[in-house]
């Protein structure tokens, strides 16, 4: 087995871990760092439940090797603390079983940060990367739009 030391910076904490070079970031986050917020949903890049930020960019962590993410800032759902988007998801009932939620939230968080003026088209372009099986998506749409609207109020 080909293992090596990998330095990961997750949620502003540095970690040195020993992993297979073929291990995905998702696997390492969950099994080595105990950060089980990012979820395995397909391990095939299709569902978005494992989305994390690498260098502020949403990435499907099942499709990236841990070693690729070495030395780059990684943000997982555990790194979001009382953000407007988390509150909006709660207020708008934008999740039920909660399994897709970490991935959706991370993606929506990045969207609201990077595109505070996002129009419907941009919102769709970003959020169609994640599958939710419980809600109707209308709740998620309301949550994201409420955060975008608040940003404008604050401007």
């Amino acid at each position, binding site marked *: 087995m080909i293992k090596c030391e990998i330095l990961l910076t997750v949620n502003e904490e540095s970690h040195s871990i020993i992993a297979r070079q073929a291990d995905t970031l998702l696997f390492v986050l969950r099994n080595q760092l105990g950060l089980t917020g990012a979820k395995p949903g397909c391990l095939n890049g299709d569902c978005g439940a494992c989305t994390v930020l690498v260098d502020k*960019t*949403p990435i499907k962590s099942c*499709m990236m090797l841990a070693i690729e993410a070495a030395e780059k800032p990684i943000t997982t759902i555990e790194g979001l603390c009382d953000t407007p988007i988390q509150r909006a998801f709660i207020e708008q009932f934008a999740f039920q079983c909660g399994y897709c939620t970490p991935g959706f939230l991370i993606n929506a968080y990045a969207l609201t940060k990077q595109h505070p003026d996002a129009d419907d088209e941009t919102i769709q372009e970003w959020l169609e990367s994640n599958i939710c099986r419980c809600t109707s998506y209308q709740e998620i749409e309301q949550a994201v739009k409420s955060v975008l609207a608040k940003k404008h109020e604050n401007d």
Partner: protein
Amino acid sequence: MVPFDFTYHRPSSIEEAVRLFERLHKQGKTPLYYGGGTEIITLSRLNLAFADAVIDIKHIPECCVLRIEQNELTLGAALSLTSIEEANPFPLLTKTASEVADRTARNQITLGGNVCGQIFYRETVLPLLLADCHVVIAGKDGLKQRSIHEVFQQRMRLEHGEFLVQVKIDLSYVSLPHAHTKRRKQGKVGYPLVTVAAIKKDERLHVAFSGVCPFPFRSKTVEEQLNARHLPIETRISRALQYLPKPILNDTEGSVEYRLFVLMNALSDILIPLEEG
């Protein structure tokens, strides 16, 4: 989950990457160049791809270039599709790229990975074929620049140990009138039933296809039919359909007949405005 082990290599120059490949190969290994990695990880899960060493080209400066210089647009093979979309140096490529997979996936999928991929849609090659671009390929004898038409026949015909470094597009192409459409079985994310991209250059239509056959293509004969301007467009389209390469896909996305029906409409939708525009 990759069900086998490999070593991961991160060369910082083209030469180093090529040397690494040769060395690993000599050691009896099966190295693969690694861009976004999405396809390698996807296919290895299903035992459809194997490597015991991967060479990540994302840290090679030439592979990350996005530059406009001397009437030429240079795009590094390791650029992610979303970074190309955001910079938008070639609007048709932006359109085509933005329909591949989903946005989060496109943050990882690279231009080179999509063009050189095993999964046969390779849609971002369509604008490159239309723009008669050149590709820069690295191999053990150094760099070479070739016309895309020379190297891309159904798929990238790279020699053992070669990898795509850049594509170079004549700037006169990037602002040409263009059109693109992707038709799916249903919904807005997923593989194409058919994807058609076209540009108009000197009153001639260039048209390229993905999803029609198990490879993307641009066909001279198809273009000749479509450019036979003395005939009504419907006639030209139905004639063009006679000259499609074979086989036409008949798969879970759609039957042959339905694909051709969709293709016919797709062609008329994008060609009529383009021709009139």
